[in-house]
């Protein structure tokens, strides 16, 4: 029998993987992918709550999370592209000055 706690624990584990990715990786592209992982974990929790309370409103919020994730990925990747053009690296440790 699968209860809501199974889904929540899975969501927590995936969120923790995303946080660990953001904190330990230094490649900007993989940082963005880790953020996607975290957003997905949040969506999973939202849908689990929607299913186990029988209230469909959570689906709408998950839909908006996906919209924001798409916008975030587009702008984030454009930033990575612009940075690479300017500095020739995607290593976030080497990107350490505000002035171009």
């Amino acid at each position, binding site marked *: 029998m699968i209860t809501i706690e199974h889904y929540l624990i899975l969501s927590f584990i995936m969120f923790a993987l995303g946080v*660990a990715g953001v904190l330990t990786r230094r490649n900007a592209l993989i940082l963005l992918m880790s953020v996607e992982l975290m957003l997905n974990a949040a969506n999973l929790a939202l849908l689990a709550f929607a299913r186990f309370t029988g209230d469909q409103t959570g689906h709408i919020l998950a839909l908006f999370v996906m919209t924001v994730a798409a916008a975030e990925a587009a*702008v984030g*990747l*454009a930033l990575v592209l612009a940075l690479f053009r300017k500095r020739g690296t995607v290593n976030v440790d080497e990107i350490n000055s505000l002035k171009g």
Partner: protein
Amino acid sequence: MWESVFFWIFSVAAVALGVLVITFRNPVHSAMALIGNLFCVAALFALLDAHFLAAIQVLVYAGAIMVLFMFVIMLLNLKPDELGPARQNAAKITGGVLLGWIAIRLIMGFSGSGMEGAPEIDQNFGTIESTGRLIFNQYLLPFEVASVLLLAAILGSVSIAKKKLW
């Protein structure tokens, strides 16, 4: 019965692929693992009776966003020596311990949700029709605001990534 089987298959696969996303050195491999992870999560969405969201997950995430990632990865065309120095064992161990600690804290953070099993839901739950009814009645304004956000993101990303604006 089958619900449990599929839950365990897809959740184990999702966690394994998630680990691969953050451990692969090459961003292309990471992106491939993330696509697999997104498919597993879409399957879990379907298990949660969110049929419309499962389809959107595959179309938007695995389809559109990951193609964008692959485009950028291949446009940058990073050489192996541009991926940065290999991580030291100390960093790997620190990352592993940190991951375990965060996961344990999160799991301990909630104790007993008090929800026993899934309630009965009507036939329409999670279909395009019921989701659409919610979006276009109760949540029409947020929906329109989301379209403005997407427009801003399009214009912003084009103007950021362009070499010369004028």
